[in-house]
């Protein structure tokens, strides 16, 4: 832990305390899967309640007539102990049934043997506890009123008040204590270490927006020029703690789109592999062992493919009950590979060069950036012009990709129809830098961030509406690190508001429409309801199973829009899910999703129209409202 690089995680204490309460005490994330959540909650709460009994047992082992003062005599406590001991036992049995009979896929790659041992030890702990209590009641040695502990009381019927029971009572208490000690000794060597680390990891988890990545500093002296995570000492202390907290539950693996389409990446295996290398090299590093060179994490702990397969959708982070932040690990691994080793998929090199030289990942001339707005009468903000009420940040995709343009055109028409005072930057708008940042090229990202912030600040912009969720995320959550503080809304939020306020006329429709949540909108930024309001206003919504914060990525995130996938395709999988709803239209709110899902639908050979919510709304506008100039 001392080896780890620093990272700021002591801000917003009230939120951290709330997270502790909800996630740890309340087991909120575990309950995202109800039944396994219940099983774990039973065992976890059981342990909280039963904690004092450890002390009681140790006292009682040494002095058979002693117990904890006051608590040891309380009937209500004895009742709680009984109840929770049984619950724990039920939980353990249920856990065994899940693991041995149901065998969920998420356990692929986990160390199941360790888990079996732990569960057996837990069963042993509560069984010996109940039997000890039972034998004490049989001998009349109970310090608490026996009627308050019905289970132990029933069990006491197994024992006669005699010498054998006296021996058994000692046996049970010592067995109980020994099993506990074994358990504690085994803890640090197994994934059950999470007992010690999880609560702490949750406390120090992210409090800020999910889509924000921690920036790096580049103004460092030559000796300190190491960027990203190349070896174990490059990891932050939080990242190391993440690896100590992993229980190998596999919930992250289950929801990962890369894993689901046959790629090498499994977030669970990633964290486990990093943990293994940390544990292997840690001791030598802490000792500053003579001549010890830590090995590069890539390819020793994880392969290059694992690092590049990730689409940064964040589904893993959302699922993780112990607040492991897998995406942060991936980004830091990428940062080292890209910025230090220049080692990344060759097809992405062109995109990075285009962002650097042409200021947009399409490599098209910036002079053409406002071409989509020809004949729409959209105001282009020139230097020195008064700032508009809202700046419409179009984004590179809508500016240059033919399919994504319709969303920008529709949005512009709608904003005009509603009488919103807006303008675009046109050629002065350059890439927000999101694809560069998600690829790990933080240096290139920061160059763009600084340039864009200067442009926006000079223009006096205070409110921005963006159609691309990646731009929306970067402008709203990440530019504040570079001096850019703006009120940023997604176009679906603004359009929904305009519809609610009656500034946009619309007509209801009968068409079944299914809406796909973009990861950067729903999961990273909680924009879920507004796009649905728009869908409801123009058609009949049909939900896919994986929606809202559980949405399944279109496959373009993490700079994958510029990479070709090698195995089964994420976008085709998601397009198939959409087609299976029976809807005629697939509504989206993101230019990447538009292109990826349209490609996916065509590849699957389905008849599904993919359209942005703004386009669906614009089609409903009465003709006179669109009046183009």
């Amino acid at each position, binding site marked *: 832990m001392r080896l780890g690089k620093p990272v700021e995680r002591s801000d917003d204490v009230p939120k951290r305390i709330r997270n502790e309460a909800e996630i740890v005490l309340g087991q909120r994330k575990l309950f995202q899967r109800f039944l396994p959540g219940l099983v774990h909650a039973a065992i976890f709460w059981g342990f909280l309640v039963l904690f004092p009994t450890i002390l009681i047992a140790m006292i009682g082992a040494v002095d058979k007539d002693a117990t904890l003062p006051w608590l040891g005599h309380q009937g209500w406590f004895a009742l709680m102990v009984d109840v929770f001991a049984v619950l724990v036992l039920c939980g353990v049995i249920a856990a065994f049934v899940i693991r041995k009979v149901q065998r969920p896929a998420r356990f692929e790659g986990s160390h199941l043997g360790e888990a079996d041992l732990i569960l057996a030890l837990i069963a042993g702990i509560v069984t010996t506890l109940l039997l000890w209590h039972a034998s004490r009641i049989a001998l009349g040695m109970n310090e608490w009123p026996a009627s308050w502990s019905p289970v132990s009381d029933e069990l006491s019927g197994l024992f006669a008040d005699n010498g054998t029971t006296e021996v058994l009572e000692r046996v049970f208490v010592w067995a109980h204590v020994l099993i506990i000690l074994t358990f504690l000794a085994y803890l640090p060597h197994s994934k059950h270490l999470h007992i010690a680390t999880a609560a702490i990891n949750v406390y120090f988890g992210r409090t800020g927006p999910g889509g924000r990545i921690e920036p790096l500093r580049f103004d460092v002296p030559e000796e300190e020029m190491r960027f990203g995570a190349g070896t174990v000492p490059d990891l932050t202390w939080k990242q190391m703690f993440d690896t100590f907290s992993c229980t190998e539950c596999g919930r992250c693996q289950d929801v990962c789109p890369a894993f689901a389409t046959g790629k090498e990446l499994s977030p669970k295996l990633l964290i486990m592999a990093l943990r293994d290398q940390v544990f292997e090299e840690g001791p030598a590093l802490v000792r500053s062992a003579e001549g010890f060179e830590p090995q590069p994490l890539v390819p020793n702990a994880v392969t290059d493919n694992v690092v590049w397969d990730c689409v940064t959708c964040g589904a893993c982070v959302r699922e993780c009950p112990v607040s492991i932040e897998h995406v942060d690990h991936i980004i830091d691994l990428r940062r080292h590979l890209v910025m230090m080793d220049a080692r990344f998929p060759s097809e992405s090199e062109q995109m990075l060069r285009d962002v650097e030289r042409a200021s947009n990942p399409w490599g098209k001339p910036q002079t053409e950036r406002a071409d989509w707005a020809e004949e729409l009468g959209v105001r282009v903000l020139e230097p020195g012009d008064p700032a508009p009420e809202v700046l419409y940040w179009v984004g590179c995709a809508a500016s240059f990709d*033919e*399919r994504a343009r319709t969303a920008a055109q529709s949005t512009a028409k709608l904003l005009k129809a509603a009488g919103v005072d807006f303008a675009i930057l046109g050629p002065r708008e350059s890439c927000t830098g999101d694809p560069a940042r998600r690829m790990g090229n933080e240096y290139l990202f920061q160059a763009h961030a600084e340039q864009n912030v200067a442009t926006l600040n000079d223009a006096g912009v205070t409110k921005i509406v963006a159609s691309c969720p990646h731009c929306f995320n970067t402008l709203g959550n990440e530019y504040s690190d570079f001096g850019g503080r703006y009120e940023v809304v997604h176009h679906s939020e603004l359009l929904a508001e305009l519809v609610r306020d009656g500034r946009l006329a619309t007509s209801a429709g009968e068409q079944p429409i299914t809406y796909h949540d973009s990861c950067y909108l729903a999961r990273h930024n909680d924009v879920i309801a507004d796009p649905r309001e728009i869908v409801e206003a123009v058609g009949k919504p049909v939900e896919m199973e994986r929606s809202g914060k559980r949405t399944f990525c279109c496959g373009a995130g993490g700079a994958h*829009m*510029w*990479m*070709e996938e090698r195995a089964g395709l994420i976008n085709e999988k998601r397009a198939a899910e959409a087609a299976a709803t029976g809807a005629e239209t697939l509504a989206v709110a993101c230019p990447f999703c538009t292109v990826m899902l349209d*490609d996916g639908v*065509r*590849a699957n050979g389905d008849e599904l129209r993919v359209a942005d919510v703004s386009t669906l709304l614009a089609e409903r506008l009465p003709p006179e409202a669109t009046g183009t100039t």
Partner: protein
Amino acid sequence: MTVLVLVEPDGGAVDELSLQALALARELGEPLEALLVGPGGAEAAGGLGAHGVVRAHVADDERLGAYAPGAWARCVTDLAATLEPSAIVAPGSNRGNEVLAHVGARLGLPFAANCTHVQPGAPLELTRVRWGGSLLEEARLHGSPALLSSAPHMVAAGTVNGADAPQVDRFAPALDDADLAVRVSEHVEAVTSGISLAEAKVVVSGGRGVGSAEGFAILEELAEQLNAAVGCSRVVTSAGWRPHTDQVGQTGTKVSPDLYIACGISGATQHIAGCKGAKKILAINSDAEAPILMSADYAVIGDLTEIVPAITAELRKAQAS
């Protein structure tokens, strides 16, 4: 005033670009005289009458067997000293541009490469090509003789009716060692057979619409007719119909041919990234709404199994005549 044109022999005749250079030169005046250097020069000279040449000069020296830009330039400068032309024109091929650049350096004269139009005068007014054709420059050339090359495939070759075969003169250029210092010493034959995807001038590419590995046969026939390479989209390689080396796209080969013919390819973003370097894209697709049409210059809508063979047949007909 005499106009001298450097003409490149090709087999027993003269190559297409040289004919275009002759057409450009005819704008400048007459008489039009040609210079042929290297093997095959004398044979090719005869056919030049139809392009307006009245006298053809063939440089004769056994050391002109292997290309040496300095030696070729020497032939030009020696002849120019005798003829005193108002202009010297070459085809805008690699060799033509190189030779005239050498001539310009030797004579201390400016040289305008890749011209599409010229207007005689002093100074000469011309239009030339930049950015591979996306931009034109109008310029004036202050120098005599004017040194120009013609932009490939931007000037129509044309012919002159009723002209006689030219008078053919041989001459020996005064070559010295310096002229021959830079000379092709070796020629290495290309190892791979067939045309490489990355370097082909035309690529015929197929996607899901082709239907099967066998379906590519008609594309291969068209490719053969055009001396083109065959490519495919990622869907095709995933399906195992063609090997990965044929794949055009982000993870395949990036191509920049003069013409990219996309048959039955819908136009996924990652595929377009591989072929957007093409000068022109022709899409053949049954779906008029396919995304590829938004990146294509030309399109034919319909069934590719009918269209592709029809094009091949039309090409054969045109080449026969």
